[in-house]
Structure formats: C-alpha cells, structure tokens
C-alpha cells in the first residue's frame, strides 16, 4: 500500500470515527429555530432575565 492510500485510509477512518461520535451525541439533529438568545442570557443571568 503506497503512502497516499495509507493516508487516505487513516483520514477516512478518523473522519468516520469522529463523525460517528458527534452523531451519537446527536449533533445535526437539533432544532434550528429555538430561541437561542434566551439560552445565551439565561446562563449568566446578567440581565436578570429581563429579555422577553
């Protein structure tokens, strides 16, 4: 097996393993329309929850 093929196999295996891990966590399946501004602020409570 030449170097190119070896690197291709290694990169492919890494890509599949990494993507499988984030897929297992559920990334890519989250709703895109949820109100993130509330989430961002509520974590710090810097504005005393006054937004919305």
């Amino acid at each position: 097996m030449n170097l190119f093929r070896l690197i291709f196999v290694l990169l492919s295996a890494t890509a599949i393993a990494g993507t499988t891990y984030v897929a297992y966590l559920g990334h890519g399946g989250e709703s895109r329309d949820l109100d993130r501004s509330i989430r961002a602020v509520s974590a710090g409570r810097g504005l005393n929850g006054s937004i919305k």
Partner: protein
Amino acid sequence: MTTHICCYCGTALDALDSYKTLVKFNILNRPETPLKIGAAGQIFGVDYTVIGLLEHEEVWQGRSWKWVDHQVFSATHGYAWLTLEEGHLTFSRRYRKPVDWLSKTVVNRAETRPSLRSEGERFKYYDTSTSSVTYAEGEFTWAPRKGAKTTTITAMSDNAMLGFSTTNREREIYHTVYLEPQEITGFDLPGAVKPSGIHALKKMKAGVNAGFLMRAGLGSMVICLVLAMAMFVQNGKLADTRLRYSVAELPVTIAFEVTKPGRLTRIDLQGNGRNSWNYLAVELEDPEGEVLFESGRTVEYYSGRDKDGNWSEGSNNASLAFFPPVTGTYSVTLDLEESGFWAPNVNRGSSPQHQITQVGLQIRNGVSSGFWLILLALGFGCIGGLPLLRRYLHNKARWRDSDWVDEDDD
C-alpha cells in the same frame, strides 16, 4: 505485391504483368502526412516499413471526411495498415479468427444494437461508412482504383474495432487497435503532433489510485450510511411522563428528568386533527426555572378524495430537539395557542374535518442523529463516484460518433 504506383508520376503499374500501366493518380493531390514511404520503425516491437499510402474520402449529407491509410510491411508479420486521424494512430491487420460476418442487412433489420463475439471479446456495432479511394501511391497487394467504393461496417469492443469491408469484388475483416506513443517508435514521426479529442479506440488513462479511490470511497460511503441508519434508530431513553393529554387540560406543565446532559433531547408531539391546523406552543425551563426556549410547532394534516383518488398532505407529528446543558428536572409547558380549519366551507361529508382533541407527548434524552454521517457519506460518494463518472464520460465520448440510434431515443 501486385501493384506499384509511382510517386513521381502517379502511374499505377502492374508488377505481375511487365509493369503495364493500370491507372494514373494525380500526384498534385498527394495528401499531407508525416509518415513517408520508406520510413521504418517498430510497432509493438515488430519492424515495419511504410510501402504505400492511400487516401480515402467519405461523403455524407454534403460533408466530407478524408483520412490516409499507410500500408506497412514486415518481413516477419506481413502487411498491415497504419492510420493517422487527428493525431491519433491506429494499427489494422487482417482478422482471420472465427467471427460472424456483420452485414448491412443485419444492421438494418436489427431492433437492438447488433453485437458479435470473437476470441472472448464482445464487439458492438459502431457505424457504417462508404468511402472511395481518392489517392494512392507506393506498393500494394491489390490494384487501387480511383473512386472505387468500399462499404465498411465497424463493431467495437473495449479494446479493438472490427471492420467488415465490402467492395464490388471481395470482402474482408480488419482488426484495429489504438497505438499509444510507447507502442510505436521510429517512422520519423514528429514528436510535436498532439492528438485532439478522444478517439473511439483510446483507452482511458486512469490514475494509479483511481481503482483504490473508487473502492475505498464507495466502501466508506456504505459504512457511513449503515452507521447513519443505526443513529437514526437510536432513540435514547423515554422520559417517565404521561404520554397523552386532552386539549381541555391545556396549558399543562410536565416535569421530566434529564440524566445525560449534552446529549440531544427530543420532544415529540402528536395531534389527532383532520383537515385542520393547530399551533402548539412549547416552553422549556431548566432545573433552575430559567427559560431555555419558547417555541412551538404546527401539527396539520389534510386529506380528501378527488378525481385522481385519495390524497393526503401534512403531518400530525412534529418535534423539537435541544441539548440540555445540565442534569436535573426540566419542565415543558404545552399549550394550544391557535388552530383553524383548512377550508371551513367545503363539503364535510366528502372531507371530514376536526381540530385536535388530544396531544401526544414523548420526551427522549440521549437521541442520536445521522445527519453528519449522511453528509460524510455524500462526500465519500463523490470521491468514489468521480472515477466512475470519468469512465462513463470517456465511454460516452468513445461512442459519440456511432450512428446507431435506439428506437427509444428517437
């Protein structure tokens, strides 16, 4: 050798009968060719010498094509033809192996592209052409006649072409292969002649890793698709809550436990309406009572019957998915905010309609998603599919000049 055509005066002389004059070609019409009579070289490692050249012309629908065949001779391998066409060189020899004759009648009567087998190779019909000799010079084993017509039916395999030629007097089969630059040496060939386009017989130059990339790419794509399917069916753990709520109970707040923070959590909603739309508002609070999001989903399902039969549109199912940041007890508040009928005035007998009376709710923590694996599969598909696409395009270019038209393509 039976005929000698003088390169100075164009006279064809009968070498078997005291060099009697047979016919005279006009040497002013001598075609331009880099292969000169007397030039010697090697083809597939065999010594050959150019002993004659023959120009053909094919006229079809007011257009004409000319090409030059070079008669070459080897003391060990006999006579053959070398043809130069738009910078591409091909090599033709008489074919004496067993093969069926492909006639014009067979081609005209065929409903599908005619094909034949010889020596384990499958040759498929390529085209039919009728050409005439417009110029001849040198030595030949037969007597070229100006204007003598030859009809040639060609059939092509992956590697070679068979030409079934018929003249008024005889018929013969020629086997033609493409000559790569390393397969022909000598003949004083100019090195600068670059072939243009894709010759029908030219094999595709695939990279050394093309086969590997195709197999590895497509194999990885299949792995990604299988993993994606596994992720799509991995639905996590169902929260311990009531699964159905009457619309009369709404708004309702339901508490549920999250045991796996940072893992996708999905709220699945299900309505039971018919030909109506219903907007369900959803608010989620984290274990500390802070609102994580306010959102909502419309569940709408329409169905009916028209002249084309039964139809349905929309879905009574909807879902929201989010990443809970910490473990603990979250609470989701559900309310029916708005609803309406699709068409209040239509005949309810043919198209029954009612708004939702019950809402189904399922909350699952630890759900997986195959989205990124599907995207990765597409990427691998492109890598693996590229060599296949190149092969397909090359093959299409090889067959583009074929005159066979499938009846389905008309």
